[in-house]
């Protein structure tokens, strides 16, 4: 059940990223680039969540000494900062 949630979250954010990428390639509108990157990072955030909870459920894993929880947060924040930048600058 929980796995389904994580997979669906990842799939949905990926879909948004793809649609926005398509739109950006067509129109070259910079807002689309930033929002696409936002959803790419949100997808990574969701994918890492999936890996963390499903693949390694019992262990607190770390990557280059950065805990996965922190890594997930960094991904999400990176994406959202890009989006906010795009909304402020290019919208």
């Amino acid at each position, binding site marked *: 059940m929980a796995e389904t949630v994580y997979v669906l979250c990842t799939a949905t954010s990926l879909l948004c990223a793809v649609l*926005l990428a*398509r*739109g950006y*390639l*067509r129109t070259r509108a910079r*807002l689309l680039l930033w*929002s696409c990157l936002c959803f790419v990072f949100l997808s990574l955030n969701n994918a890492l969540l999936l890996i963390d909870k499903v693949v390694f459920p019992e262990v607190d894993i770390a990557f280059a000494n950065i805990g996965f929880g922190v890594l997930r947060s960094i991904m999400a924040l990176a994406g959202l900062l890009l989006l906010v930048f795009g909304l402020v600058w*290019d*919208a």
Partner: protein
Amino acid sequence: MAAEDIPQNVVSFLAEHIDSVVQLEALLLLHANPRQPKPAADVARELRIDPNWTEAALAKLAQSGLLESSAAGYRYAPRSAELDQTIAAMAREYQTRRVTIISMIFSKPPDPIRQFADAFRLRKDDRTERPGEEAR
């Protein structure tokens, strides 16, 4: 082609509400008979424009709060008296400065927010490329 002497409220109105000449013509047609709702097909026939384009343009105008949509069709119903005055001014300008108004519509820079929303359209017919052309 001096656009400076077009009143500012008309310029702002065009920038904010009008994306195509179809929208402008449809709005002015309904403005000419404000009490009477008209179905999209009638508007299309009177303007001699493709009915799908007309329907889309009228829906957009209704969404912007300029027309009222009902079973009987679309009726001129701007959200405020100020809008009504602006549209009346635009109608007057359009009679004498038609080319300037039309060129203002076409020289509108693309709106990034519209482009954002349009990116989520999956069908091909909403884009400007002709059928048969591959999306880049």
